[in-house]
Every structure is written in C-alpha cells, then in structure tokens.
C-alpha cells in the first residue's frame, strides 16, 4: 500500500496533527487490534493513508462540511479513523454508546441530524434499520464487519471496504482535495459532539473544539510525562469523554500506541499481553479485579496463601510510602523487596500492570481498602476529576500526592471556585464550546464570568486538593437537620465487595433507608462456601442469610458514621435487597452507571413507602426492558430489615 501524504498549511487541528505524525513518526505503531488471535498493527503513515481513503470515500458519497457522522461500535481502529476522516472534511463525529437502545439513538440521530453513520457490525446495522423510519435524514450506513450481512439488500448500506475503495479512487482523481479541506479547519471549530446521558433529563450534546482537545492533551502530556513509546488499552466506550481523550486526542498529540482488545470478554487477557504504560479504569473495574484476585487466592495452596498474607501485610504497612519515596522502616523495605519478587511483581504481571507508569481512576468514589491495595503492591494509582463538559480536565493527583479522600489539585490552566452553596465552579482549557443547538442549557450551565457549574458540592482543603462531597442538588437534610449526602453514604456501602449498587433515601425524612443490589459474583461465591444453594440472582437476593450478611456490612458503616456527631444522625435504619439489578437499559442508571435518583424513587415508590411505614416486606412488580427492546415484568416480595444503630459520641458522653 503506497503511503499517502497530505500537505497542509496549519497544524492546529486534530486531523492535521494526525497527518503530521505520518511524517514525524511514520514508522511507529499508531494502533493495534487483536483480530483472529493476532495483534494486527498500523503505523502512523499507514493510518494516515487509511484516514485519507475513508475521508475521500465519505466525500464521494456526499459527506460535506458541517455534516455530523454517527459512529457506533466497540473500540476498533476503523471507527477511530472515522473520527479523523470526518474532521478532515470539516464534519463532526458523534459517537454513540454501543449498547444504546433504539429510543436513545433516535433522539441523538434527530438532534444531530445524522445523514451518515459508520458502525461496527450487524447488530448495530439492525438497530439503525429499525430506527430509520423515525430518523428521516439517515441516508448512508457504513458497516465494517461483514459477518451476517450477506442477505441485506437495503440501498442505504455500504461496506467499509467498498467505501475505502471508492475513496482510493476519489483520492487518485482529486489529488489536492484533502489538503484544501484540511486547511479550512479552524482550531475553534467543533471537533466532536459527546452526548451526555444526564441523570435527570434528555441527553445534551457537548461540543468540544480542536483547540480544547489539543490543549488538554498537551497539558496531560506534560503533567504525566506521556511519550510516543507509551501503550494504552482502549476498552472503554468511544462515546465516553475519557476514551475520546485518551485513545484519540492524547494518542494523536503524544503519538503513543492505542491497543484495541479482541472483544469485551477478552479485555483482561489482552491487557496482560500488552501491559499498558498508562491505564484508566472506573473504581468498579479495580474492585472487580481485586475480588477476582481474592477469590482465586482463597483457592490457592497453603504455601501461596501464607506468602500472600504475610507480604500483603508488609505492603499494607509501608508499600505506598515506599512507592512515593517517603520514609519507611528498613526492615519493611527489605521485606517489601522480597515480597516484590514473590508476590507483588507476579501479581502485577497477572493483572497486566507490570509496566504501568500511572493508573488513574475517577467518576465515582473509590474504597479505602481498594485504593491502598493497588498502591501498596506498587501500582501508581491516582485519582482525577473532570466531566464531559470540561474534557475530563480539572483535577489530578500529582505523583507522590495520591490521597484517598481527594480528587487532586487543579491542572495547569484550570481555575476552581466554590460558590456559596458549595457548588464547584470550573474554568478549564477543556471547557465546552456549547451544548449542541441548546443555547438555554449552555447559558444555564455557565456563570456570567464563564465558569462551568459542575453540579458537584465540595471544597478545597488546606493542601490545595479538591474534595467532592456529593452532587449539589442531592445534598439534603433529615428532619432533625442532619446533613444527608446520599452519595457519601452509598459510596461507603459500595466499598464492600458484596454490594454492587446502593441507593439511599432520607431527604426530609426522619431517618435514612437504603435499597441494595448485591454483587452476584462475590455473594454467590460466599454462598457456595457456606454450602448455601441458590437458583439465580432473584433467589440469592432474597435469602435470609444474605440479608444477614449485608446487615453486618451496613452496621459497620453505621458504626463508622456514629463516630462523628454531624453524621451520626444519618445512620441507616432499614434496608431491602432489590430483586433485580439497576440497569441502564431500564433508565435506572445512566450509560456511565450513575444512579438516576429521581426516576428510581418514582419507579420504586411503593418500596420506599414500605421502608418508612414499618412494613416487614413489600410486593413489587417492575417492568424491565430486554436488550432487543421487548419489555417484560418481574415481580417479587422483598423482605425489609431493621438495622442496629450506634449512639453518637455526644449522646454517649451525656
């Protein structure tokens, strides 16, 4: 394949920088994909050729400046190239979550007036064909994986390979077409629209500019020391701002390699093979990894268990300090070094984290034990804070300052203010340009002097680190005046491996109650070890023994809360275990797995009433949506348990 080069006069937009990479580091691997068991790779110059062909193919089919391109699928090189191709032509890529259901897609397709869509496979094609009658503008559907597509004859469909061929021809016939298009792109132009699934309302399209992406990527590059020999694993949804930042913007600006796993089931296997140098995962993933490790250790031989226990104790004592270069007892240092040989290094290797220079987590709170575990075995896990509207660029913890309870200090170029009611206001280079076709929302979200209203309540501590309490509008109060910050309580509950999700109620009530979702793997494993048989999720979630187990966990949280006068009143008095997991498909969670509080309170209102009127159990029937759009009903009678609470220190003293 002959390499293509695109002469250009400016280098301040993302596609321009991509084509620059082809000249500056053309032979370096830009992206890999594991396909048919083998890592296939493309260098920057090969990537630039592919992007050129794709862009020309789109142009040949009529894609032009100002068009929006929908991109839907798992992380695949061809889909990442679609971002660049559309940007080159002055269009805007609009990625959607691959597990989005028809209704969500219709909204975005109509709001963004999508005419062209590039999707991964038959599953996405089927969804688009289903919504096509309600999305009048959709004219062209490009699909990559041809499996199962043989009998489809809809004229709107065209395979990626066909489009690429068209593009190759078009490029040959219009040699300087791309250069001209590229030169018309301005850094202030919108480079991507990321729809945020709000916890309360319809999705809003966050518009980010080329300049924002490049500035943020450069800021991250200097803060974290990214270089072009880095490797990352792209396994988080492309529609999520974090993946767009890491796998697209940063990869183009810094030049490091992006690796796309074979499938979502093989992510951990693929991670072991790649051993990325930079890694991001939401706390949930770190939790699951730790659970897996713990479960497997319980099955290990006695010698291995002894080694693990002994050296993990050393790590817990001094591991984090040793990694940060702080003081630690000499004996511990020696033991830690031995432990590294026998336990920590093999463990890191098994997790695929042998080469990690820094690992970040964020988006939700992380449990203390979890955080300490990873840091103590030598993984530089730190927290960061940001949102889609700020391109995830607000706060990060610098090396050596990784603390459990903060989200870091402001990044270079970021300014943070705290409003009277405690809401955090941010000015960042990654700030959105606007919400797509929604000037009212845009105006509402910014203060007069251009600060973004994050909607989070928090404060800056004496070390200059930001601490997040909860979503500002969720912070309420009990009838006795005690502050009720539901997420604060829920996070404490979710730190237990047995609890997957928790929703707390208490605003304007006498006391706090909670819904719990059990973590199937951890609780199932526990049940098996007790010799407790169960026939599935609903059965397990209704067992009295499981209630006992969870009651113990929640009572621990209560004891914790009781240590402070101001929090003692928010101890949890009653709880129940839900018969089904809260699910984004049922609109109970957002696609990034945040609880839609208002919706859940409404849907499960009868349960909340039962919690507060003293009933011992409550019957509930809920509607669920299956992945193919059909609906069904699940009914169950849920038991309600009272919990022991502890008296506050002041009450004890009295």
């Amino acid at each position, binding site marked *: 394949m002959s390499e293509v080069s695109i002469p250009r006069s400016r280098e301040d937009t993302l596609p321009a920088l991509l084509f620059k990479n082809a000249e500056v580091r053309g032979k370096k691997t830009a992206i890999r994909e594991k396909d048919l068991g083998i890592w296939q790779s493309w260098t920057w110059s090969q990537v630039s050729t592919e992007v050129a062909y794709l862009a020309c193919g789109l142009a040949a089919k009529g894609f032009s400046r100002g068009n929006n391109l929908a991109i839907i699928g798992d992380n695949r090189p061809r889909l990442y190239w679609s971002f660049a191709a559309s940007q080159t032509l002055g269009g805007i890529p609009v990625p959607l979550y691959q597990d989005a259901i028809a209704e969500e897609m219709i909204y975005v397709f109509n709001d963004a007036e999508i005419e062209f869509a590039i999707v991964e496979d038959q599953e996405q094609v089927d969804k688009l064909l289903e919504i096509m009658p309600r999305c009048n503008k959709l004219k062209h559907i490009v699909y990559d994986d041809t499996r199962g597509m043989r009998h489809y004859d809809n004229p709107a469909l065209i395979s990626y390979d066909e489009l690429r061929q068209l593009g190759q021809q078009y490029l040959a016939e219009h040699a300087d077409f791309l250069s001209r298009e590229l030169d018309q792109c301005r850094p202030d132009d919108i480079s991507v629209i990321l729809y945020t699934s709000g916890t309360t309302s319809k999705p809003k399209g966050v518009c980010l500019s080329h300049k924002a992406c490049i500035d943020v990527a450069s800021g991250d590059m200097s803060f974290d020391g990214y270089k072009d020999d880095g490797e990352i694993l792209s396994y988080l949804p492309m529609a999520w701002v974090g993946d767009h930042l890491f796998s697209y913007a940063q990869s183009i600006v810094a030049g490091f390699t992006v690796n796309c796993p074979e*499938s979502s089931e*093989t992510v951990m296997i693929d991670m072991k093979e790649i051993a990325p140098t930079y890694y991001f995962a939401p706390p949930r993933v770190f939790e699951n990894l730790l659970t897996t490790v713990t479960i497997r250790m319980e099955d290990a031989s006695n010698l291995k268990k002894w080694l693990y226990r002994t050296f993990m104790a050393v790590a817990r004592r001094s591991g984090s300090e040793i990694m940060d270069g702080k003081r630690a007892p000499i004996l511990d240092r020696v033991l830690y070094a031995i432990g590294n040989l026998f336990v920590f290094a093999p463990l890191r290797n098994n997790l695929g984290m042998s080469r990690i220079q820094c690992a970040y987590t964020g988006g939700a709170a992380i449990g203390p034990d979890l955080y300490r575990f990873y840091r103590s075995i030598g993984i530089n896990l730190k927290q960061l804070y940001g949102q889609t509207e700020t391109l995830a660029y607000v706060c990060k913890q610098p090396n050596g300052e990784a603390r459990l309870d903060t989200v870091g200090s402001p990044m270079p170029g970021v300014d943070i203010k705290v409003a009277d009611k405690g809401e955090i206001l941010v000015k960042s280079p990654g700030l959105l340009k606007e919400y797509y076709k929604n000037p009212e929302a845009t105006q509402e979200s910014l203060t007069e002097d251009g600060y973004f209203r994050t909607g989070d309540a928090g404060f800056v501590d004496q070390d200059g680190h930001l601490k997040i309490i909860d979503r500002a509008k969720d912070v309420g109060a009990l009838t006795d005046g005690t502050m009720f910050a539901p997420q604060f309580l829920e996070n404490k509950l979710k730190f237990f491996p047995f609890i997957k999700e928790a929703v707390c109620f208490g605003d304007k009530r006498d006391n706090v109650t909670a819904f719990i979702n059990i973590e199937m793997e951890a609780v199932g494993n526990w049940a098996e070890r007790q010799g407790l048989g169960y026939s599935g999720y609903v059965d397990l979630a209704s067992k009295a023994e499981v209630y006992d187990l969870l009651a113990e966990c929640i009572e621990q949280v209560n004891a914790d809360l009781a240590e402070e006068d101001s929090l003692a009143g928010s101890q949890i008095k009653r709880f129940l275990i839900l018969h089904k997991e809260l699910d984004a498909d049922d609109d109970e969670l957002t696609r990034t797995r945040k609880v839609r509080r208002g919706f859940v309170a409404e849907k499960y209102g009868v349960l909340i009433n039962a919690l507060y009127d003293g009933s011992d159990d409550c019957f509930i029937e809920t509607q669920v949506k299956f992945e193919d759009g059909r609906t069904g009903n699940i009914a169950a009678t849920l038991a309600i348990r009272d919990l022991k609470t502890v008296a506050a220190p002041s009450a004890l003293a009295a």
Partner: protein
Amino acid sequence: MTITQRTLGSTLLKVDNISLAFGGVKALTDISFEVKEHEILAIIGPNGAGKSSMLNVINGVYHPNNGSVTYKGVQRKQMRPHEAASQGIARTFQNIALFKGMSVLDNIMTGRTLKMKAGFLSQCLYFGRARDEEIEHRLKVEEIIDFLQIQSIRKTPVGRLPYGLQKRVELGRALAAEPELLLLDEPMAGMNIEEKEDMSRFVLDVNDEFGTTIVLIEHDMGVVMDLSDRVVVLDYGKKIGDGTPDEIRNNQEVIDAYLGVSH
C-alpha cells in the same frame, strides 16, 4: 428465528434399506431416506429408536448387515470412519468426545488433521512446509473461533469449560474439517434456553454461510420444527415418518409413538 430461503441441491446422501443388528437386537430395520445438498434434516424418535446407530452407519463406525449408503453419487458398503471423514463427513458426539486436557485451540486444530499434508518429521522439526501449513491451519481455526465467539476461552483446557461451551468447541472441531456433510448427535442436549438459541443460531449460520448439509438428531421439538427442512422419524429401528416438519407434526403414527398430544 427466521430461516432464509436456501436453494437445495441434488441428493448428497442416500441410504437404502439399511438393516443393522447386534446379535438378536435389531437396531435398524430397512431404513431408507435421502438428504439433499444444503438441507437440514432432523432425525427424531424415542430413546433406543436407533438414531445414533443411523449416524454411526453414515459415518462408517458401524457396518450395516444389509443395504447401502450412497454418498455423492458413489455407492459404498464398507467404509472406515477416517475414509468417511476424508470424503467430507464430520460429526459431533452425544457425550462429547473432546480431549479434556488440551486447550480449545488445540482441540479444534485436531479437526484439521486430515488436511495436514506435511510429513511427520517435518512437522516435528517445524520448518519449511510444515510451518507454512501450520500457519494456514491456525488461520482457519481462528476463523472458526471467531465464528463461534469463543475467543476468551481459546487457551483454556476443555475439561474446565461448562458443558454448553464444550459442545460449542466440539462443533468447532467438526467445522475445522470443512465438511460438506455435518452430523450432529443431540447438539442441544443439556442446554438451557439461551444456550439452545445460541447453538441453533450457529447451526443455521453454518448452513447459511458455508452451505454445509446438516443431519441432526434432536429431542427438543421446538428446535427440530424451527431448524429443519425435513424430518425423519424412527421408532424401534423402523422408519415411521419422513416429511416436512408440518407433515410430521400431524402424522398420527408419529404422534402415537413419540410426540403425544397436548391436553
């Protein structure tokens, strides 16, 4: 499940007056039927009816006392299983006959055995022709792994897999031989609804994508009626029905012997 219209070819397999007895036990008595190319034929019947025996006769494991098997227009009486295999017949087994200690990848690779041409020594030393062949075979095997969506268990020893996945691996091994005729012995046995739907989809995809003719033994009537073009019914070694699923559903003798009525 929708079944796309397939054009059926000429007769691929024809069995005429097959009789098989083990001493006094008459396993099969005078069975005749035919299978067209690209067809999906189901053989159903109560336990002990002789269904697996029929498959074994087609495959060359059992030699019938009477009757003949005509495959691809060539009549044959005695055939060894490996001769049947090299002619393009592959099968799966009711109780799974995989190599439990080997990985999924290696198990499926064994399905390529008859296609390996390089000599023993050259394969041991892994150079030249053997190496190129190995890469070619590996590619085919990976395509099958991709088709069956079992990438995440590629390296897992088969013995550690749940039953449903083992059956999928066995199907993979049969597919690795690139058969023209695929014999499936109770592919859905022991599966729950979801697993059955997955397996059914794979069976249909194999027939659709590769054009493979399929003969399957199955007890789940829903699967049989949905997947097959024609059904042959056996009872006590005799054929009591032969026709489309609808014809069989309404055949009184079949209802009496096997299907029963709903109350």
